[in-house]
């Protein structure tokens, strides 16, 4: 390149510049890209793996007892994960229990144990505090922790029963439901060891580029800011394939299969707990796009952010568990984007506060026997 003005006619670019100039441009891009990646890694550190987790063929994964680890999503804050004497995430020991306290066991996916959120900010720590103020008794939450599907959650039933809980709360999100394979629920598979299958690495160039871009922290930072544009984020989410089809009505056959699986699984789990006089409370935790749509973002006619919640409410009525859809609560929140780690997908500390309110309100529901027992007129009587 050179000044356009004042150049003699017939000027020519030196031959070497045909190579040198594009190379310089490419080199500049590479250096800036590497600089951006370095900057992002320094200022947006990430530690998503909890070093206390051990893989288990039966229950998925669980934490080592009396272990402490640090986790952090690039978009979030550092969280110290302290696992108690049973390897559960809780404010206290799993063995010692205050007289007259109510014990709640939290199961479900990573949100259930407050993954990536400091203990005091988790939904269950906040719910314990709210319920204590409301019901006048201690609430001892024990979050089993670990990464598990519904079969693996149910395989922990003996551990749950050992804790003698007054209720079990399961946090489920559409993301967790999308993880079920859509086969018919088979209770004989509970407790069966499952081989962990490493995802076979694809060698296609496209897959390698996707993996490279996916691993880039600079791309993550860019995505984070890109997702601040709600319209862009939600339209991108709706176009992201079948994982978003739970928002569309009627449900696709794949999602009908998934919901049928969840229906049977929860029916079985609720029955198992009921036989031990333990109520099951299921809370649906929405995805960010779902909450944005519920908050009134314009959307196509076939999109219904409440459809999956309504389907689960019908399951609850059939299967005998208590259900709460947190979608409405999130849709009413101001600064909804602050409730989620947009790229990571989990709730932020602020997001856990809303989940805590929904869970606490459901646990203290005066119209339900479980609520009355935990927080109502029956509260004064010893729970066991």
């Amino acid at each position: 390149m050179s000044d356009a003005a004042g150049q003699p006619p017939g000027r020519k670019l030196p031959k070497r510049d045909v190579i040198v100039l594009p190379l310089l441009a490419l080199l500049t891009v590479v250096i800036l890209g590497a600089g951006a990646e370095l900057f992002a890694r320094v200022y947006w550190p990430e530690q998503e793996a909890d070093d206390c987790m051990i893989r288990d063929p039966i229950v998925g994964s669980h934490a080592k007892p009396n272990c402490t680890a640090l986790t952090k999503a690039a978009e979030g804050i550092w969280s110290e994960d302290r696992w108690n004497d049973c390897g559960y995430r809780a404010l206290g020991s799993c063995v010692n229990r205050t007289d007259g306290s109510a014990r709640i066991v939290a199961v479900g996916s990573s949100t259930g144990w407050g993954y990536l959120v400091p203990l005091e900010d988790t939904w269950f720590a906040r719910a314990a505090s709210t319920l204590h103020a409301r019901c006048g008794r201690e609430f001892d939450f024990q979050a089993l922790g670990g990464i598990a599907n519904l079969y693996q959650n149910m395989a922990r039933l003996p551990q749950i029963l050992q804790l003698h809980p007054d209720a079990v709360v399961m946090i489920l999100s559409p993301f967790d439901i999308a993880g079920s394979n859509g086969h018919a629920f088979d209770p004989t598979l509970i407790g069966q060891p499952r081989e962990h299958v490493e995802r076979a690495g694809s060698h296609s160039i496209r897959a390698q580029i996707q993996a490279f871009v996916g691993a880039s922290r600079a791309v993550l930072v860019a995505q984070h800011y890109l997702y601040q544009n709600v319209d862009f984020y939600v339209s991108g989410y709706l176009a992201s394939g079948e994982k978003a089809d739970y928002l569309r009505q009627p449900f696709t056959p794949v999602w009908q299969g998934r919901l049928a699986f969840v229906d049977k699984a929860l029916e079985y789990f609720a029955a198992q707990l009921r036989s031990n006089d333990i109520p099951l409370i299921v809370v649906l935790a929405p995805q960010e796009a779902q909450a944005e749509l519920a908050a009134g973002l314009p959307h196509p006619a076939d999109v219904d952010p409440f459809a999956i919640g309504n389907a689960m409410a019908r399951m609850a009525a059939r299967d005998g568990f208590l259900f709460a859809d947190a979608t409405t609560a999130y849709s009413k929140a101001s600064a909804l984007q602050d409730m989620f780690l947009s790229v990571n997908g989990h709730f932020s500390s602020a997001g856990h506060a809303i989940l805590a309110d929904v869970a606490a309100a459901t646990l203290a529901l005066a119209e339900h026997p479980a609520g009355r027992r935990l927080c109502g007129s029956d509260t004064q009587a010893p729970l066991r």
Partner: protein
Amino acid sequence: MNVPSLQFLGFALVGALIFNLSGNSRWRALTLCVLNIAFFSTFLRGWVSAVPYATFLLLGYVGIRVLHVRRSTTLGILFVAATLAAFFILKRYSFVPEPMLLPYWYTAIGLSYVFFRVLHLLIDVSQDAIEERIAPLSYFNYVLNFPALVSGPIQRYEHYHRSEAPGAFPLDIFIIGHSFERIVGGFFKVTVVSSLLLMWQKSCISHLAGSAPLPMRATDLALIAGLYPLYLYANFSGYTDFVIGAARLFRIELPENFNEPFSSENFIMFWSRWHITLSDWLKTYVYSPLLLTLMRRITVTWIEPYLAVFAYFVTFFLVGAWHGQTSMFLFFGILQGGGVALNKLYQIAMTARLGRSGYQALCAVPAYRAAARGLTYTWFAFTLFWFWSNWEQLRLLASTAGPAAMVGALLLLFAAATVLLSGLAFAKARPMTGTRIFEHRYVRTVVATSLAVVTLAALVLLGGTPPDLVYKNF
């Protein structure tokens, strides 16, 4: 379609490729016509929304043809008046009676700039300044020239017409490279520089608190006032760089709109360096004819210099008032006209007092020049309060800051502008050794690529949408 945007850039690059496939003038004119229509259609909501605009263009062309055949002052005035009336109606000026306004949505994108082009043609054709017959395609491509449609610059027809000649404004690798540099630089200014400056100014507005100590309030207010001219400059000159670069790929040389405006040492000079094509247009079609008319009618010698003061006031009042349809912009016009007129009065008074050479000697004193630059910047920044806010916001700002902070802010801004602009002028006058390396094409390639990468990253951070262009609304 936003300008500048990646979408527009892609459109222009593909268009330029097709345009340059053949050297045939007809091919190029037709390609440009198709591109102009395609670009214009991105601002439409159904063909009906194009009808008022098309009628306006047709009215202009009919006027030009009629005046070309029969040059007459009366007819010229008639067509100019009709064009003015159509413009005021289509732009929905507040003084236009409601029943005269069209009761549906139509596009008026870039109409203010098209209006200046049409008016220029009508006046010049009626006065024989343009003698040749203007072909419909040439007229259409000139008034609706897509790179300059949204916010100018306002090119004169003679200049545009030169680009239609075979072999005019040739393209080579150097010019293409230079055009890309301007495109990238302009995009960077709009997307990165202007966004950051606006964010900073807005954060100062949020930060301004009545309970804060006086120095803090004065600093906040000085920043609120002082950052906006920089933002406006980055936003508008960035756009201009972008479209000049894009138009050059179509062998069109658009005129420059800015020439280091903040180095101006008086307000008259400022307006010859800021939005140059607009002020030139008004100087040509308002200032000069008005002054000539006044001088012909008023022959008292001592009053002659003051006629220029009056003509300046009217011209730059119109420059200001052109920007919008509200009372804010009328006041903005009064401040622009008032500023230029006061400047002229001061020049007359100082020349009378010191003599021409004495005044020139004073203007050459470095400290005087520095203070003059600072004062020019401060005045412009002050007038812009009526450009970017409304009466309610102004009242709130004034009541929050208080009179003492307002005076303090102006003094602070004057001092800061004087020092910073002098530093800039000093650095420009004495370039550091080794800075010539930045003119080398290798270094320029690295700089342009870096700006492109940063701009792309900023676009991603902004959610893919570049910041809005202030002058698109005028």
